[in-house]
């Protein structure tokens, strides 16, 4: 079964920023995502909502190339090979994963700098850092934590590092998987303030969020995933 959603694109463009066509993900015999199709226009922020365990994270990690998938994923018309996250990053599709997956024994500075790995031509870490240090303007609270190992930071600080690392990759399409999972309410608000700022730029955002109240604060529209299928379109209030 294929279900497509078209929704209401806030800023439609000729070539969609992200096209997902017939995407499916299986773990052995278990089908986590079944023939999902949708598009996200350039500059749009689309939320993927739905209960836990219904394929949202599997879908987004497959789009990012981290798990093998069936179907097609295109970024600004360019088809991505399956299971190749490096190719996805090079096209400008960058994932901030659930639980962040930082490098705990590397410093905050290194964590952010490595976001630029796929496009930097620098040999020396210091020069690569200088190229991306401007991301701190978006996350000034990280400035005093640059030399601290990421594993020693609080959950909220780690989330900021994960976002800064993603921004260092110069994303055109940003995938956010449960960015507020396990964070205090005040920290979640800070994350959504930042996301609100990003929606004012030309960046395209696909936001996976269990909590629709959170998601619809910033999203132009939403799609719902249920039992591995994109079920219905929705439009933000």
């Amino acid at each position, binding site marked *: 079964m294929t279900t497509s959603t078209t929704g209401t694109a806030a800023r439609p463009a000729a070539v969609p920023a992200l096209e997902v066509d017939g995407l499916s993900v299986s773990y052995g015999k278990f089908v986590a995502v079944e023939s999902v199709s949708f598009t996200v226009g350039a500059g749009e922020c689309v939320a993927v909502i739905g209960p836990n365990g219904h394929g949202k994270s599997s879908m987004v990690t497959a789009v*990012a190339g*981290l798990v093998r998938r069936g179907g097609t994923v295109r970024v600004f018309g360019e088809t991505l090979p399956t299971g190749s*996250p*490096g190719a996805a*990053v*090079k096209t400008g599709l*960058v*994932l901030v*994963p659930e639980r*962040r*997956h*930082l*490098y*705990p*024994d*590397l410093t905050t500075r*290194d964590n952010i*700098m*490595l*976001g*630029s*790995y*796929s496009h*930097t031509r*620098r*040999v*020396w*870490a*210091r020069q*690569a850092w200088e190229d991306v240090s401007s991301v701190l303007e978006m996350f000034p609270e990280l400035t005093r934590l640059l030399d601290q190992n990421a594993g020693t930071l609080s959950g909220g600080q780690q989330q900021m590092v994960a976002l800064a*690392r993603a921004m260092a*990759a110069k994303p055109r399409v940003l995938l956010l998987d449960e960015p507020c999972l396990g964070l205090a309410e005040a920290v979640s608000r800070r994350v959504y303030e930042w996301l609100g700022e990003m929606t004012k730029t030309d960046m395209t955002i696909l936001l996976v969020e269990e909590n629709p109240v959170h998601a619809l604060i910033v999203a132009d529209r939403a799609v719902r995933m249920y039992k591995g299928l994109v079920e219905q379109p929705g439009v933000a209030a």
Partner: protein
Amino acid sequence: MSNFLNLLAAGLTSGGIYGIFGACLAVWFRVCNVLNLAVGDFAMIGAIATAKLVQDFGLPFWLSIVIAVVGAGLVAWVFDRVVLHFAFDRGVGAHGIVSVFFYTFGLSLLLEGTARAVWGTDVFGAPAIWSGPALPIADFHVQRAGVLVIGLAIISGLLLWAYLRFTVSGRAASACGESVLGSRIVGINSGLFRRRIFVGTAVLAALFGIVESPLSGFTFMSGPTISLIGVVAAGFSAFRKPGRAVLVGLAIGVAEAMLGGYVSTSYNDVLLYAVLFGIIIFRPEVLGLRAEPA
């Protein structure tokens, strides 16, 4: 005094070997959290292959070195493509604690058995790269091969340290060991780093085997002993810091020589295993073990 200095020189020489193998283990573990228990076997391949190519085939010494070193690298590359790639990149086979040591332990046994079948049980030593009588320094003497071993150990340790500390590539290699998924997210190919460093350390080990073999000679079963001492040196560097592993290796070598010189050579092994027990009891975390709360 001259006895002390001679023991010091001998200890630094053997310690240089321990240190460099500890560094090889530490840098690879840092990248993929796997112990390379075959690192000593690559040294054995380098030393014996060079000796055989020169003695039996009459090839020029430097050409023999190149062939032996490239051959060791090729063995490592093939093993990575045929075994490690499927185990770690494709998720085939056993995982967890088994993968930490079993694959390279199996490779060690494979190389040992093959070497015995092909080269027999004789002791081999490659010709000396820097031949000549021992160098007199004050009133003691240092073997030229020993000078090369110590110098190469220090240079290799420094280069590995600088690579990991100062380069983007070195940081990316470290990130692979910290979080495979996290590294893939930013486009780092963790499999490629694992392969490059596995092959690179195999080549380095083979080169050291060639340099050192005029001093001690190699048999088909020399590898595991070297690897074991490398594990101790790497353990004291938390399997993360190749520079520190070189320093620890030098310290172990000196301690072993002093104990052998002033007490008894029988205590060499006692010291080695005492150090191992010490790690397990007092620093279990460096072996990837966790002490249970009392």
